[in-house]
């Protein structure tokens, strides 16, 4: 197990991680400049997860938030969320979920689900559910309608995270596909980035069914909390 993880941390991985963190932060700032209603601040993390494996992705996420905390202290307590984004992105890539566009949507959804689950306790414990982010308006509205604190926070995350994480996964996928095959081959897991040619109907149906199951699961979790 440990040896397997160690294999992912080649010199290429160690050099990619700082670049990926800088990509996270720089794109996050471009998005703010363009006034888009998403964060897109984990593209680098997902990228490392795809081509260098889950644990490298997790490390990138955690360090990314810690370093971003140097000039945006509000991002500091959210490092576990970033950690799990990188980890889940890596596992999805290992399972072959970064090989064509609809699988990428599925990975984005799984990442969003994880992010929502991990961020909820942080949001509730540190901020009482109302964080400094704009999506807290939804939480506040749900609280006013009489929902419980946990279910209000979880519902807000389920409403806002998928859009952000699916576009993040899509952009990371596009970046990996845009890199030259020779460069990708130097990283530990080039096979995760190899795109599939043509997609069969059965695969599409499987993906739709899995997405529906994931959505249903989300609702079950929500109802259990409320």
């Amino acid at each position, binding site marked *: 197990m440990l040896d397997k993880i160690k294999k992912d941390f080649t010199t290429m991985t160690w050099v990619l991680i*700082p670049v990926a963190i800088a*990509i996270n932060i*720089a*794109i996050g700032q471009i998005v703010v400049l363009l006034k*888009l209603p998403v964060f897109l601040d984990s593209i680098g993390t997902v990228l490392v997860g795809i081509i260098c494996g889950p644990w490298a992705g997790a490390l990138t996420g955690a360090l990314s938030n810690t*370093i971003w905390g140097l000039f945006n*202290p509000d991002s500091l307590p959210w490092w576990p969320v970033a950690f799990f984004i990188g980890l889940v992105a890596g596992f999805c890539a290992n399972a072959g979920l970064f090989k064509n566009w609809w699988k990428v949507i599925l990975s984005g959804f799984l990442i969003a689900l994880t992010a929502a689950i991990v961020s909820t306790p942080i949001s509730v414990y540190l901020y009482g559910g109302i964080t400094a982010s704009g999506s807290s308006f939804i939480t506040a509205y749900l609280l006013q309608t009489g929902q419980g604190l946990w279910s209000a926070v979880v519902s807000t995350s389920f409403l806002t995270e998928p859009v952000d994480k699916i576009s993040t996964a899509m952009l990371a996928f596009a970046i990996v596909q845009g890199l030259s095959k020779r460069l990708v081959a130097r990283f530990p897991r080039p096979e995760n980035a190899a795109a599939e040619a043509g997609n069969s109907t059965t695969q599409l149906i499987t993906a739709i069914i899995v997405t529906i199951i994931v959505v249903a699961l989300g609702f079950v979790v929500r109802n259990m909390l409320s």
Partner: protein
Amino acid sequence: MHERLSYYVKRDSSIHRLNPLTKIVVALGIILISFSSPWYWTSLILLFLVITPLCFVGEVSKEFFRSAIRLIIPAAGFIFLMQAFFQPVGETVIFSFWILDVTQESLSYGFYVATRIAVMISAFTFFLLTTHPSELMSDLTRRGLPGQFAYVIISTLQILPQMQAKAQTIIAAQRSRGLDTESTFLKRAGSLVPLVGPLVFGSLIEVEERAIAIEARGFTSTHVKTSLHDVPDTSLDKTIRWILVGLVVITLVLKLWLS
């Protein structure tokens, strides 16, 4: 968009002479005590009677107050307002605005959360003002942290300003070509690709060259490396660290005992 990355201010105070690990233990200890304390006023007391005096001792009070105005007060103030307006707790309405009620309870809760956040940010700021990142990294490497971690952190701090400058250049260049970054939502979303593409591909291409360069300098070598800087670690440092650990444990016990 172009922030200063290293907060470090070079002074010769007793705080600066402490071991970097001691300072990070102090900062984390203060944060943990503030978040786990069962008492309402702990954070405020830590802020004014612990962190602020420490900054005076460390001769960084001017820089600390500057970052307080620029960073800590806006962040904490914003969280306070959000809590005051949106927390649906309490009965004693002080005033109403549209559908939002500001109650006595939500005000006091908002103050509680905001002071905790303020302690977190200011303890971290204090640590950054008095500790040079490379000093921390060489000390942690000496204590057994793999050199690769130190490389990642130091290298990120160097790459980030370059990357931000590059992003500025790309934005300016694309704008001069007529790229729309200000009008409708679809146009703004569409201009994401021509901005992100050159930035990301440009920086990823450098990765391979850099990997070869540091590999040639023994990056993956497992031999013990000698350090140019010798970071002192006195018995005072050890005492301070143990005191902080003790205080955190006491606070946690109190918290569990009282709740």
